[in-house]
């Protein structure tokens, strides 16, 4: 059969299987292949908390969704065009994400009575039970074919079975007209040195999968997603949010000339930042895996005092633990970047799922009047800039800065045009310089009258001996419980943070800068809101969009922007936290809310509906 190759703007593919089925790898390889083919894309890994959840159970299903396009891709997609389900549980958990026109590719070998039952099906007609019997089903005996493909290659049975995902990947590559080069080069990179005998079989099974798909009669059409013209020319790479944060911090270290110190305690989904930084000792970075989150931030505060660019990274519960020490960083006015990769809470919650529910904690979760700048990243690649500028603000304004990311950003990835460091600004901390006069003492809390920023004298600097600490002090650094001094210092610490507004970008409006409805978002919902608003505008609706990367302080023009719209709709993955903050900061406006707390990103569809309700 000669397949018709249909040109299409974008497709969404969802790979799903047991935790041990290698779906995360399959998805990544498919994404990278597409990236190299010039597509824009966005990925969304969605996996369980268990390491190897019991075989064949719904709770153990691990998924990876990738959205590739020939134009700008903002989200991993609501619904998929192809669902790969390696077993009944994967089908059961993911069928609801299929478009009406979707293909469903299953490994028929795993659809045994036992596994069908284990997945919770009542009958053997799984498609009917799920109401997806009208989709294009591609039943393939993947296990059998993989075994056949690798018969006699010298691998043991267990290793052979692990190659099922390569067979499947080959099939997907055929369906979407992807060349196999990238995957082959990955296989070589992975095995050539230590297991050269594995290269051939892996490449073979991939190719066999590709050929199998080409030969069977079940695939009505294949598709082609052309390179995205919207992508600026340049050198690209795929990057996850966690990786981008690590790299952004390394960039800030280079631009400030200060060694990077990261004191952290592992926690999902933030751990990968620490893991990533642990690799780059060659850039002078030190990572300290602390005994807990409190030690993580306290070692970082110590490192900051000692003159490093200090960082601590964590997620929800770990962020809670840092509350007290954040106050110390505020009082000592030391630079510090605190990264919180938010996850579904409260408490341990659903560790591997995404959410935006730590915002109010970031703003207010400390005793006393304790203001800290808060910045949020809005896409995986944007995490690089968000981290870089978080560090820049921390170092130049002598303050801890909280950088909010989200599981969705941290684990998700997108292609990123690699920047050149020469294009980034220098970072210039307010180092205490010069020599003090005889008898003169360094005043650790004397401020620049413009910015309210104090100077930084780093131990080792002769003559600048001074003490910092958590007790209230006067400008000279001497303990003081004087009421007026306390009010002054409270006000000055607040003013220092407020004045950061002078050095951050203004809020931009996507769409007309006045009108009926302004949709407002922050953080990782950017892509979804952008897609929804674009969709609405294409339909001729009067909607604009303003997304906040800087939360505390708000961009200076926020009030101006808001005042030009009749309605404001704040969309966020929590019960209304940014909205609460806006109501306090800019009480003159009326805010409507669109919220979701399900451990999952928005669907574009949900946002479109919410917008439609407003107009």
């Amino acid at each position, binding site marked *: 059969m000669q397949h018709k190759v249909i040109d299409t703007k974008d497709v969404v593919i969802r790979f799903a299987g047991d935790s041990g089925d290698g779906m995360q790898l399959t998805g990544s390889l498919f994404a*990278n292949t597409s990236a*190299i083919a*010039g597509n824009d894309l966005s990925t969304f890994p969605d996996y369980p908390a268990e390491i190897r959840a019991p075989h064949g159970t719904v709770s153990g299903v691990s998924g990876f969704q990738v959205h590739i396009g020939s134009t700008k891709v903002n989200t991993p997609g609501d619904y998929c065009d192809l669902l790969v389900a390696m077993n009944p549980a994967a089908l059961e958990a993911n069928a609801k994400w299929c478009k009406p026109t979707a293909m469903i590719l299953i490994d028929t070998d795993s659809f045994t009575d036992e596994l069908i039952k284990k997945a919770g099906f009542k009958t053997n007609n799984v498609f009917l039970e799920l109401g997806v019997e009208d989709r294009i089903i591609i039943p393939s005996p993947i296990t059998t074919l993989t075994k056949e493909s690798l018969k006699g290659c010298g691998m043991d049975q267990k290793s052979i079975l692990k190659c099922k995902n390569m067979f499947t990947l080959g099939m997907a590559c055929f369906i979407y007209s992807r060349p196999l080069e990238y995957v082959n080069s*990955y296989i070589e990179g992975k095995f050539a040195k230590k297991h050269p005998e594995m290269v051939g079989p892996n490449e073979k099974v991939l190719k066999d999968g590709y050929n199998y798909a080409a030969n069977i009669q079940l695939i009505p059409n294949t598709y082609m997603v052309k390179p995205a013209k919207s*992508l*600026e*020319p*340049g*050198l*690209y*790479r*795929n990057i996850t949010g966690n990786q981008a944060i690590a*790299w952004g911090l*390394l960039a800030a270290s*280079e631009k400030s000339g200060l060694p990077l*110190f990261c004191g952290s305690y592992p926690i999902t989904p933030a751990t990968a930042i620490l893991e990533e930084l642990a690799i*780059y*000792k*060659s*850039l*002078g970075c*030190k990572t*300290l895996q*602390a*005994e*807990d989150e*409190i*030690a993580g931030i*306290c*070692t*970082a*505060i*110590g*490192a*900051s*005092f*000692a*003159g*490093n660019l*200090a960082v601590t990274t964590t997620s929800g519960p770990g962020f809670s633990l840092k509350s*007290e*020490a954040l106050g*110390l960083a505020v009082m*000592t006015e030391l630079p510090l970047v605190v990264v919180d990769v938010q996850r579904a809470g409260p408490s341990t919650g659903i560790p591997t799922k995404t959410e935006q529910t730590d915002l109010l904690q970031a703003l207010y979760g400390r005793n006393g009047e304790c203001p800290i700048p808060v910045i949020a990243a809005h896409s995986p690649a944007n995490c690089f800039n968000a981290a870089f500028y978080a560090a820049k603000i921390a170092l130049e304004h002598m303050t801890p800065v909280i950088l909010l990311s989200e599981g969705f950003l941290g684990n998700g990835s997108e292609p990123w045009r*690699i*920047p*050149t*460091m020469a294009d980034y600004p220098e970072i210039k901390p307010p180092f205490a310089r010069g020599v003090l006069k005889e008898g003169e003492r360094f005043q650790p809390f004397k401020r620049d009258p413009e910015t309210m920023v104090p100077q930084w004298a780093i*131990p*080792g600097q*002769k003559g*600048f*001996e*001074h*003490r*910092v*600490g*958590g*007790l209230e002090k006067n400008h000279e650094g001497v*303990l003081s419980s004087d009421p007026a001094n306390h009010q002054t210092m409270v006000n000055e610490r607040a003013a220092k943070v407020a004045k950061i507004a002078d050095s951050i970008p203004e809020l931009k409006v996507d769409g007309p800068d006045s009108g009926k409805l302004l949709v407002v978002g922050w953080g990782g919902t950017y892509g979804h809101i952008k897609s929804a608003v674009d969709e609405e505008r294409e339909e001729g609706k009067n909607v604009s969009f303003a997304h906040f990367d800087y939360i505390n302080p708000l961009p200076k023009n926020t009030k101006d922007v808001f005042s030009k719209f009749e309605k404001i709709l704040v969309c966020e993955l929590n019960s209304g936290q940014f909205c609460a903050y806006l109501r306090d900061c800019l009480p003159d406006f009326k805010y409507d809310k669109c919220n979701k707390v399900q451990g999952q990103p928005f669907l574009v569809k949900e946002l479109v509906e919410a917008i439609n309700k407003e107009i």
Partner: protein
Amino acid sequence: MATLTFKDFKSDQEVRWCPGCGDHAVLAALQRALPKVSQALGYEKERYVVVSGIGCSSRLPYYMDTYGFHSIHGRATAVSTGIKVANPWLTVWQACGDGDALAIGGNHFIHAIRRNIDINIILFNNRIYGLTKGQYSPTSKFGAITKTSPYGTVEHPFDPGSLVLGAKGTFFARSLDVDLKLNEEIMTAAALHDGCSVMEMLTNCVIFNDGAHKEIADPAVRPDRTVVLRQGERMIFGKNNDKGLVFEDNRIKAVTIGEDGYKEEDILIHDAHANNLGLQMALADMKGPDLPVALGVIRDVKDITYDDGVRDQVKDVMRKSKIHCVDDLLRSGSTWEIK
């Protein structure tokens, strides 16, 4: 480099401990020890950082004319760790109370010891919470009557020495607040020790726990109830220098030289440098009525420090890696060109 004197380490801040508080003497010993240490190791004053937690004793950094960090309750050890790892060239001293280091700060304390961070921890053990006005601490004696234990505590105290050794500490010393000479000696040894040095100072709190250590500190009984351990010397003690320690029946025993056939040669010779956790534990754990409390440097063994380890690893990777700047990093691994 100008020679430093104790005056160089005295800050212009008024010392705010109660008159008679044991902390005064420890401060004095430190201000006397540091000039000697500086001389011996060629350290400038600006190289010292004094860190503390919260408590009466944690006020110490204000009284030292060095860089100082008066952190939060229990976290001094973590802050010190960060400072030392970030910049191993700095020399870090830490002051903390028994509550600060062993109650809220217990975890950081044992982890710094485990990692063998090269910091010098002075543990002010007055067996009470001073600053909060007299609640029991993890070192308060069983049955201690305090504001939070009006009927006596029902919990066993930590013995900081055992805890340090249990965490495989490389340096542990113990002394009494008032023994300025021994304290200077211990502080100097701690400074010379490359690794985490814990100095337990048995201090008195005149206000909330007066006589905290009187069973051994009282000059009348001190010679009989304490033994000062010194490297290479026999473990002899007593008003008449006639008592000594031997190891018998798998335990340490106190004997009188000249009685029951014990001769001076039978008495144990102290070796703080030997890696003998069992024996040193037994020594650190000695207490009355049968055994004297051990003072002096009980354990002082060499081992790799964490801060050196980190620094060396960074250097090593720097040498071997191909990634030397962020531009290298950004372009490493799998990339593609879009034209």
